[in-house]
């Protein structure tokens, strides 16, 4: 494993809704609660979890799009929230983002060449012919024909739009790409094209991916390491293969178990299904956040919050262990 590229330390993001003045209500959503995470150079770290678990918030904290309530994010050892203006500019060149919705992530009023070229003009790296050349190069890289340069986003299909988004993200030669559900809005046949493209680009440029997805088979295919989140907390973190084959945290196990398997002969397998719904992240109960749904719950789980501890090369936040 390479060097640590980016690292979060005790990172917290709470959203407080006081309901305005004259209201006694005070809701705190602990979207990201005390997350310690490191991403190594050239690896793909996948983040899985269900809706509302704080995946997107965490991604937006890592890229300095949101201010944390507490904690820090260190990029190459420096806290990104206390950088000078110049250093922030450098940071913004090195970390880029790929969005979930290929329709909302491109400005419908801009031409493709302007969309892909915007990072270049913003950082004054190219203009005129040099910009055009670079845009052509990038379009070629992601498999778009350069004749499409003067078209508007609505003239493209979902998959092509996602390619435009990737080209834009690559324009500044970043080191880290944060991919927020990059294929979940795409059709199956297009999904595989984009996943292959992402793999190719990683090999070609030595990129590091922080890959967010709720699709477990995509994660299994893409990731080196996996991080499982539940209600704003990391519950398990470790090598992808190990986590899939031998989950330690009960929530991870349920998650893996719930995913449909594309083999009709396995349909009557014995499976454990979680009861109830994904709990609301508003005012979570004390103790382990999973205790209300956990079938192995013990007294201690209701009182004491489990720490994320090392379990033979992996980390797990459970008072017990499934093995």
């Amino acid at each position, binding site marked *: 494993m390479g060097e640590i590229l980016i690292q979060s330390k005790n990172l917290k993001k709470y959203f407080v809704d006081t309901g305005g003045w004259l209201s006694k209500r005070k809701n705190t959503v602990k979207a990201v609660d005390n997350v310690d995470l490191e991403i190594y150079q050239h690896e793909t770290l996948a983040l899985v979890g*269900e809706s509302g678990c704080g995946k997107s918030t965490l991604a937006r904290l890592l890229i300095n799009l949101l201010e944390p309530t507490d904690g820090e994010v260190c990029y190459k050892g420096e806290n990104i929230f206390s950088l000078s203006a110049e250093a922030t500019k450098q940071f913004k060149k090195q970390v880029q983002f790929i969005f979930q919705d290929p329709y909302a992530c491109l400005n419908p009023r801009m031409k493709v060449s302007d969309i892909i070229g915007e990072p270049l003009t913003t950082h004054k790296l190219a203009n005129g012919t040099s910009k055009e050349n670079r845009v052509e190069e990038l379009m070629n890289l992601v498999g778009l024909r350069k004749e499409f340069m003067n078209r508007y986003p609505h003239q493209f*299909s979902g998959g092509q739009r996602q390619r435009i988004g990737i080209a834009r993200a690559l324009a500044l030669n970043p080191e880290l790409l944060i991919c927020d559900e990059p294929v979940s809005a795409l059709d199956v046949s297009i999904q595989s094209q984009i996943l292959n493209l992402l793999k190719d680009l990683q090999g070609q440029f030595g990129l590091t991916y922080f890959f967010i997805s709720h699709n477990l088979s995509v994660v299994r*295919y893409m990731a080196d390491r996996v991080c499982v989140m539940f209600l704003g907390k990391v519950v398990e973190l470790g090598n992808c293969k190990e986590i899939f084959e031998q989950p330690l945290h009960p929530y991870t196990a349920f998650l893996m178990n719930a995913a449909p398997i*594309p083999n009709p002969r396995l349909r009557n397998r014995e499976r454990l299904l979680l009861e109830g719904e*994904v709990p609301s992240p508003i005012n979570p109960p004390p103790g382990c956040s999973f205790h209300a749904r956990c079938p192995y719950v013990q007294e201690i789980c209701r009182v004491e919050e489990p720490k994320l501890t090392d379990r033979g090369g992996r980390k797990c936040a459970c008072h017990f262990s499934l093995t």
Partner: protein
Amino acid sequence: MAEYSAMIDDHTIRGTSTPEKDKMLEVKGLKTYFFTSKGVIPAVDDISFTVSRGRILGVVGESGCGKSMTALSIMGLVPPPTGKIVAGDIILDGKNIASLTEKEMCQIRGNEISMVFQEPMTSLNPVYTVGKQVMEAAILHQHLSKAQAKEKTLEMFKLVGIPEPKKRLDSYPHQLSGGLRQRVMIAMALICRPKLLIADEPTTALDVTVQAQILQLMKKLQTELDSAIVLITHDMGVVAEVCDDVTIMYAGKIVEQANVFEIFDNCLHPYTAGLLKAMPAFKENGERLYNIPGMLPNLLQLPKGCRFYPRCECASAICAEQEPDLVEVGQGHFVRCLKYRG
């Protein structure tokens, strides 16, 4: 932890031949076109299939392949004025419902056929309680009194596994989670014990753990209610979990049709094969995924010949010229590809 038992349960593999009396729904040569200012869009183009009592048919395809429009055509809900069913028979339990008037169709909808939609968040009316919305169908079709309908709704809520069903009757949709709303939708669809249930991507908008619950519920209800289910999905994983028969659609046409084991073990159409090969679930990390090159064709400008040929790896010159027919290659296994024309 749960071991995946690779056992084949005998009773899950049922015969493929369908006795006439068990045919619940038969769609024959259905064509639904959209007449827009830019041209005619053949959204559903000559679709035929059969669903039997107690079985789940999976209709699979990517966005724009016409699977949802097939469902709406069966329901008689093709959006006017541009959309129109131009040909075909829809035979429900021996009665052709394609020729019914709107008024007659209203007595079938929600009563003999009902439907569950993809977005549980937007499919319930935000200004009425869910109890009221579920009761409505029972009052309409079974002419129950309000109290009886309420009783029945409560019963349905219990059946679909809604916790605290009594309290939930008076909840508004925004007070429920996505999973609960989808259960409400299912209760609403099943309250009149329909002969046919159409579920259009019922789990796509839900989380994985909730999706598993809903699929489990559908399987349970299918055995209990003995109705036929058409499940529309893009996810082969979901198909493998619950469907008995599978119909694969591409650009408005059926390209392959067989029972679920045939599809997974022995698929014949290059598109079906491509769909399966493109799934990352079958690949180890590091292996390259299979790509179906290109993208879905524009239905306004369909290629001559086979609709899949521009993306097909096995295409030969004739594929660009001649449109293949759907032919039966094995018992109950149909393929639309010139490779198999006999």
